């Protein structure tokens, strides 16, 4: 029962109304997971080379999910154990002591391939739109993007299809289903925020008292909705825009990239803002010197270290690693989150 919102004014005084806040579901239960793991650990050459391989397949059923109920019931959703999801993948790790003499060199790497698939949502519908660009769909991974395909800009005198942003200087959207108009049916699934694989690599070399170590990681084959760029490249008025929009379309400045402004409207979300955010990043490099033992201390170590020194990516946002909006329904959205900082550290570490 709740007293939220359904109040009324009698004798010019607001009285509080109380009504059920939802349809009860007495059958709620725990989610259920079944998992298969096959793993193998191998060691060669007197443990100088070790290899780990794991295959996993996990299916989770009875996931809590809200299902739409008819509005005529007085409510919009009911919560129940409706969802199912599957994750399967392969994890490989290798680590080696390459040199063990005066120069000690160790290296290890790992790579993970995961594939994820929604098997059921609410048991009735096959898809659920989460936003104007993302959705959940049975048979597809979490985090797929669906947008219009941008095909340039409607130029002066050019005929254009009726529907969304149908105006000279507006986006020319691809009529995917060929029905002669631009509607929500012309949106296409254009990519997925889940990477094809991700990997990490670390290595260290020691020689006498010197030690050099590093760690890099990479993510490949994923896409990210650059919401920051979308917002600030969309000329709807009332906000400052990115520099490129200075070159916006006008009758005297025709182009195919930046549309004519349209105040107070929602311009279409197009594929151009769903970017490939694959990256390789050197997360850490450290050079250290370990002083010989002295009387008061078990060890003194001086080091210089750098974090997030290099990032290799085609992604246009601030940080290819930023990945959410802070709310569960709008994952995989780069809202211009503060990027991972590049930092340099000089340190002295004493152990007593």
């Amino acid at each position, binding site marked *: 029962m709740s007293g939220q919102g359904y109040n*009324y004014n009698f004798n010019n005084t607001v009285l509080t*109304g109380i009504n059920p806040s939802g349809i009860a579901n007495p059958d709620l239960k725990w989610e259920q997971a079944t998992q298969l793991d096959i793993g193998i650990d191998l060691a060669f050459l007197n443990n100088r080379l070790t290899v780990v391989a794991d295959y996993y397949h996990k299916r989770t059923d009875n996931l809590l999910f809200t299902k739409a109920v*008819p509005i005529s*019931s007085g*409510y919009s959703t009911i919560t129940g154990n409706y969802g199912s999801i599957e994750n399967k993948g392969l994890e490989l790790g290798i680590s080696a002591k390459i040199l063990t003499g005066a120069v000690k060199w160790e290296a290890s790497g790992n790579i993970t391939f995961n594939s994820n698939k929604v098997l059921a949502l609410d048991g*009735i519908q096959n898809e659920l739109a989460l936003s104007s660009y993302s959705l959940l769909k049975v048979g597809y991974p979490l985090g797929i993007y669906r947008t219009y395909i941008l095909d340039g800009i409607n130029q002066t005198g050019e005929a254009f299809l009726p529907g969304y942003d149908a105006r000279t200087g507006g986006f020319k959207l691809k009529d995917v289903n060929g029905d002669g108009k631009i509607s929500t049916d012309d949106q296409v699934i254009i990519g997925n925020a889940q990477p094809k694989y991700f990997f990490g690599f670390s290595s260290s070399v020691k020689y006498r008292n010197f030690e050099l170590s590093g760690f890099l990681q990479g993510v490949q084959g994923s896409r990210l909705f650059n919401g920051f760029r979308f917002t600030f490249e969309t000329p709807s008025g009332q906000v400052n825009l990115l520099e490129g929009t200075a070159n916006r379309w006008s009758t005297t400045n025709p182009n195919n990239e930046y549309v004519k402004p349209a105040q107070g409207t929602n311009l279409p979300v197009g594929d151009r803002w769903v970017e490939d955010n694959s990256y390789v990043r050197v997360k850490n490099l450290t050079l250290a010197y370990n002083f010989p033992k002295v009387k008061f201390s078990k060890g003194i170590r001086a080091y210089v270290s750098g974090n997030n020194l290099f990032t290799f990516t085609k992604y246009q946002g601030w940080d290819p690693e930023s990945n959410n909006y802070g709310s569960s329904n709008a994952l995989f959205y780069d809202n211009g989150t503060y990027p991972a900082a590049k930092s340099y550290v000089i340190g002295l570490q004493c152990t007593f």
Partner: protein
Amino acid sequence: MNRYFSKSILVALVLVVCSSACQKLDEDVYSSVITTNFYKSAQDAEAALTAAYGSINDLFDQAPFVFGSDFAGDQLWVKPVVGRNVFALYSYDTDYSGPKSFGRTAESPYGLWQFCYKGIENANWVIEKVPSITMETNRRNAIVGEALFLRALYHFTLTKNFGDVVIRLSPSKSETDALVAKSAKADVYKQIYKDLDEAITKLPSYSASTIKGRSSKEVAIGLYAKAALYAEDWATAKTKSLEVINSGKYSLMADVLDVFNVDKEDLARQENMFAFEGDNSTKARGTTLMGFCGPANSASRDYGNMTFGSIFAFQAFFDSFNPIDKRRQLMDTTYISVAGKVVPQKDITPYTVKGVLIKKYMDKNSVGAKGRNNVPILRLADLYLIAAEAEARLNGPSATAYQYINAIRNRAGLANLKTGLSKDDFINAVLQERSWELFAEGDRWYDLTRTNTFLTVIPKAVNEVYPVRTPLAKHRYYPIPLDEIRANPKLEQNPDWK
């Protein structure tokens, strides 16, 4: 020996832990109030009834009760923006995607569907649970009567807009309860009659002590008359409307302008039988109607302290009034600006030089866009015109029929209607009178659809903002929102919208 003993204790402990852990986890909820332990006291009954009234706030806050139909009608036009123009142009779809794309479902027929069914659900809990509560009998009966009246009002609003609709007579207690198929329009009206018959026996008559905002026996009878008019049950429409008029409980305001004078809203209760109770206090809900009607940028203090210039009357509608008709003063072709200057008609709105302001919902003491205006849901003038029409449809333009339309005309400063009209001409005169009397009250479009005249009337109601308006036969009723159809396998879309 000692070591052996302790080991067996350990084994026993492990067994105990395991067997208790393997039991089913059953949780009793202690901390929340649920439907099975609410509805126990008189206070619970009142709070549950208030929630059933609460949907009236939703119907008038963003005002789908008025805009849901008036955007489509021939009296006023709405500023052509996304999600609103689709109703003036009949280009809406079953998903209401235009209003959705701009967050405007709450002012559209989608909102009517949503809010009416929420109100019905809340009324159904009252109707089911309150009769078994131990409390003072008269008040208990009245509470159930009010809930039955509200259920009838919501079902009536739904069927006016959507034709065949879902009839809901019990609360949603489970997922299965949530799925109900729709019923034919005729059955919806049968249920409305049934609910009102029962409400009339339970509700007290209107009196000076009736709490402002609550319905009375006469209000229920009045709604009965209006529903009967729509069901083309002329005899019932006549009987019930005369019952209200002759009850002596209500009377027409002497000056029609006072019906909409916010400072006289309590006096106006003698005519304004049931209304949305607007208020500008912090907790209360106001109506956006005031803000929509006043000029843009809050340019005139007379209309309210925050107004947007969103709806205007068609010039042709303004011109259809006899200049001596007092009701024409509920519109204006100039206004006084905040600086005290007279702003001419050509500058009222940038969309046309023929802007006509609507003055039914003005409140110069509004708090921001929140006006105190009580917006009529049922008023006595309507019942006079129902009586005139029902009588004419039954017995032709009799003296009785003339009596009721002339009461409304005379009050507006007009002479009696020309005598000797044919039946059809008389009925058309009543429909025209309804248009003049009830404009911008969310009534006219339903007159056009119930008489099926919208196909010929609307194409003539155009201006430079909406030069072409061509509704199709399917626009007589709105499509059931696609969200409802998707979630309700028992429900089929209206045939015209499939």
